[in-house]
């Protein structure tokens, strides 16, 4: 499984095309993020529009990306927050940590 990555302006978008509730999806996110981060990208947006379900494993992966970015003064954003994912983010107060990209 691989998640497509595209650059637009100064932002890098990782299009997460599966639910973030399995090791396979988590590994795909880790790889896509690390590849972007290691190539110097410091504003990364996780496109969650195709994600129906996220569990604590998936959230853990998102937070790992966040922490790595934060350590290098970068920004990790999400788009869009909707449905089950939005509810889960708000429940765990992650919406206060990860800004939403409205572009």
């Amino acid at each position, binding site marked *: 499984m691989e998640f497509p990555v595209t650059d637009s302006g100064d932002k890098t978008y990782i299009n997460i095309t599966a639910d973030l509730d399995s090791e396979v999806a988590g590994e795909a996110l*880790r790889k896509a993020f690390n590849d972007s981060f290691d190539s110097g990208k410091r504003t990364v947006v996780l496109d969650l529009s195709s994600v129906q379900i996220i*569990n*604590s494993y998936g959230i853990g992966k998102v937070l*790992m990306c*966040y922490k790595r970015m934060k350590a290098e003064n970068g920004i990790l954003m999400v788009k869009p927050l909707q449905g089950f994912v939005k509810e*889960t983010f708000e429940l765990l107060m992650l919406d206060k940590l990860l800004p939403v990209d409205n572009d």
Partner: protein
Amino acid sequence: MFANDILLQEVMSIASKFCEAQVLELPYDFADLNLEDLYRQRLDSKKALLITKSTKGIYCRARFEVREAAKLIPFSLPFLDLLVAEKKLSKKAADKLQVAFDEAFANALEHGALELNSNLRTQVQEDGTSVYEALKKSRMQEEKYNARPIWISFNLQSAKFVISVRDAGYGFNEQNISSTFQEIEKPSGRGLMLMRKFTDRLYYNKKGTKVTFVKELVR
């Protein structure tokens, strides 16, 4: 009531791919009998799946070893699909219940059976993976850990759906986790919070090795 026979067919279909299954039909309300005794009498400790069908509903219990862990997840799906089809549960509620089950199962597997400490999640290896995940992969290959049992049960009645997950580990104290709920970036505790919020009732046995949660159904 439910399309019980369809549900039974679905569960048996999943079971038959990899384990031996028995179905017991009880003509009476199984609340009148001690299920533990029944299972001890009828369920060989090596046999994986027992389904009890009675006038009250369906009770399904499966015993697996850690090495077969991935096979446990699909068992919840026929129950949830049926409840949504019968309009006893909304799709959103079914998704939440699936997440709650995933969390309970992950805890039983990773903490109960594999004895992984959540603090290891913050230790990262050179390739970006955590020490926690590396240790999980390693212990899944060791017989000392991967032969350990996990039990799941699904109890489907007309007014509620009850799920239990049990492991044979040392147990845990939920109070030790609850105190960190307010820390957004903490390494653990999110699974427990999701389980509590996505179900109507949740409780642990005294030792902390078994979690049971209840979802009230649409009448």
